[in-house]
């Protein structure tokens, strides 16, 4: 592969030169109260997101206590600044480090090419005291692929530009710069008398006693094949259901943000020697999901993508996904990941309000998201919605119609550009919700089913025949009447059988207790009931007989009536015989002899009556 000379992108070169000229001009805006006695900068270039950790020892040499420390960045760098955090610790021990709030400030007399941030100290730094300050700055799009287009077999080379001297509005007594490279080839770096490249670490320094705003441009051109995963757009939908689930659905549009592929892609070369042909591409993406995530799916517009692996423990669930094709520079892929989380891990209640406590960014590792939209879908009936996010976002509200919804669910939409893994902090959404509103959903289902049943009832009760005078219609009406009468007769026969059973029971009681009077009383009662039932039966029988549709069933009913009469007689005689023999104190054997014949007949009659009743009920 031909070695490229390093002509820099011309625009950046010009701006850097301008900055170098400004060094002297800016001396007038230097602060005379703070001095940085030691500045150690560590730049991490292993990933496509550049992280710079500056450990400063700030000393107050002025007469007044100082409550803020200014940090300066050139505008080209500040444009790519995604996150800035400052920590302070007292003395040498790192145990007590507090996070300092950072603001963008515009000090008087400041040149427009610089952006200033101010770290507010928790308590003012007294005269003569010193403070350890750690500033972490994260830059995106700071590694320029150079060359911008490579073939499949090439490694990806990128350019990083920075200053060997720490750019600060205060004079710096002693400082050093360490740049950590990802390993692999280093094409070129700015040669300086105290620059050393040892084991993929580039060290510049130490420099002593530099004036404020000193700038010495340093350019490193090196090989970085780590995945440049950039999500052009990520929509993250978090749906809360109080029945026990928080469902997260993430729609990704991932592009390889490094040097673009030119020429053709040869699958044979890629598969036979992937470490030579295709070293600049990446195949896997790893996502760290919360523990106890379930029902995880990975699909795209075509369907399910099966090249994924999942393993989990009690602290996290690790999902490794492999898109349908490896991603080379400039290539993009879209997919959707969804998973469910238990409700009790993420939704809490305090002071009458409920809140959702969940991470803001994507669970993917080392991914830069150019536009992140987080939608939090709250259950229907939620009121008083408030959001608390640790960094500024754009908020709006909309409505989503989902399962079993009448008015729709309120959705809080949060948008933020330029999201990096450092933004994966917890945020809260507060709302009010009454558990009674949960019952609305089963009520809807119950009402639906009940309306079905009511429709059945109405259908059975309406008369939808067209002609009310046709013979078949009239015949049907008459048959309905016959059926009703027969059912009533059946009911009466049930009562008859009940009385028979009572008589038999009284006989058994007699043999057990020997109480003749109760037995006789029972017989009298049975007699009266029989008379009453036959009185009620008479009108039913007459109406049945008169109906023209009853010709089939009438003989059976007549048969039934006669058999019932016979049975009544037999039962009565048997009863009297038993009572008499009891009065005469005959032996059990004699009693049996007398009623044996009757017993047989009674049993046979009973069988016949029951079979007739069955036949009638099945018509």
């Amino acid at each position, binding site marked *: 592969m031909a070695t490229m000379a390093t002509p820099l992108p011309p625009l950046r070169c010009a701006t850097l030169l301008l900055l170098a000229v400004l060094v002297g001009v800016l001396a007038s805006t230097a602060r005379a109260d703070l001095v940085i006695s030691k500045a150690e900068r560590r730049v991490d270039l292993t990933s496509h997101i550049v992280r710079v950790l500056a450990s400063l020892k700030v000393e107050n040499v002025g007469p007044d206590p100082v409550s803020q420390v200014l940090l300066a960045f050139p505008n080209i760098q500040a444009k790519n600044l995604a996150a800035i955090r400052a920590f302070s610790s007292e003395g040498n021990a790192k145990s007590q480090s507090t996070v300092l709030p950072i603001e963008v400030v515009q000090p008087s007399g400041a040149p427009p090419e610089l952006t200033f941030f101010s770290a507010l100290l928790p308590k003012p730094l007294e005269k003569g005291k010193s403070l350890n300050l750690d500033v972490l700055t994260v830059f995106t799009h700071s590694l320029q692929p150079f060359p911008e287009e490579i073939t499949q077999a090439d490694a990806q080379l990128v350019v990083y530009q920075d200053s060997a001297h720490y750019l600060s509005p205060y004079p710096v007594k002693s400082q050093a710069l360490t740049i950590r490279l990802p390993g692999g080839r280093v094409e070129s770096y700015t040669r300086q008398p105290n620059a050393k490249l040892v084991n993929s670490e580039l060290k510049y320094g130490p420099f002593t006693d530099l004036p404020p705003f000193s700038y010495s441009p340093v350019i490193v051109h090196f090989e970085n094949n780590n995945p440049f995963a950039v999500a052009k757009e990520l929509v993250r939908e978090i*749906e809360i*259901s*109080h*029945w*026990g*689930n928080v*469902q997260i659905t993430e729609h990704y549009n991932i592009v390889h943000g490094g040097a673009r592929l030119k020429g053709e892609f040869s699958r044979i070369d890629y598969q036979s020697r992937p470490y030579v042909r295709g070293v600049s591409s990446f195949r896997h993406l790893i996502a760290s999901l919360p523990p106890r995530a379930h*029902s995880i799916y990975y699909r795209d517009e075509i369907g399910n993508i099966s090249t994924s692996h999942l393993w989990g423990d009690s602290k996290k669930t690790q999902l490794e996904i492999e898109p349908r094709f490896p991603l080379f520079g400039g290539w993009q892929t879209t997919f959707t990941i969804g998973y*469910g989380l*238990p*409700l*009790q*891990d993420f*939704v*809490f*209640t*305090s*002071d009458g309000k*409920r*809140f959702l*406590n969940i991470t803001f960014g994507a669970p993917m590792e080392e991914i830069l998201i150019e536009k992140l939209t987080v939608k939090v879908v709250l259950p229907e009936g939620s009121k008083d919605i408030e959001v608390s996010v640790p960094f500024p976002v754009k908020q709006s509200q909309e409505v989503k119609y*989902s*399962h*079993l919804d009448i008015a729709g669910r309120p959705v809080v939409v949060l948008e933020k550009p330029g999201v990096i893994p450092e933004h994966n902090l917890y945020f809260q959404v507060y709302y009010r919700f009454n*558990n009674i509103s*949960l019952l609305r*959903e*089963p*009520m809807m*289902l*119950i*009402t*639906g*089913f*009940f309306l*079905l*049943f*009511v429709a*059945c*009832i109405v259908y*059975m*009760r309406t008369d939808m025949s067209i002609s009310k005078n046709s013979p078949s219609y009239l015949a049907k009406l008459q048959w*309905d*009447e016959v*059926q*009703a009468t027969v*059912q*009533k007769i059946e009911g009466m026969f049930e009562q008859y059988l009940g009385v028979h059973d009572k008589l038999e029971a009284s006989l058994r009681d007699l043999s057990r207790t020997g109480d003749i009077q109760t037995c006789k009383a029972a017989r009298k009662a049975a007699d009266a009931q029989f008379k009453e039932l036959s009185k009620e039966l008479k009108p039913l029988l007459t109406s049945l007989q008169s109906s023209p549709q009853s010709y089939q069933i009438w003989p059976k009913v007549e048969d039934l009536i006669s058999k019932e009469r016979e049975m009544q007689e037999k039962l009565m005689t048997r009863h009297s015989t038993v009572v008499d023999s009891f009065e005469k104190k005959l032996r059990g054997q004699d009693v049996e002899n007398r009623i044996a014949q009757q017993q047989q007949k009674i049993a046979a009659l009973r069988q016949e009556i029951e079979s007739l009743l069955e036949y009638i009920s099945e018509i």
Partner: protein
Amino acid sequence: MAAKAISSPVPVEWYPTLAVVMVSVGLMFTASFFIYEATSSRRSRSLAKEIATAAVASVFLGFGSLFVLLASGVYV
């Protein structure tokens, strides 16, 4: 002002069992309703009995279908 975690009113492990039990009871009441409709004659039908059976059946079927939805992963 400690935050307390909230969970669903019915334990999530019970969802499949509740779904099966409620739907089967609901179907039994539905069967009883339709048997009554089929075997009774126009004269002897009682609206109160019909409405009562329909109401009980629809309550069980409603809750049963809700738990079927929840047990199969559609968290409504």
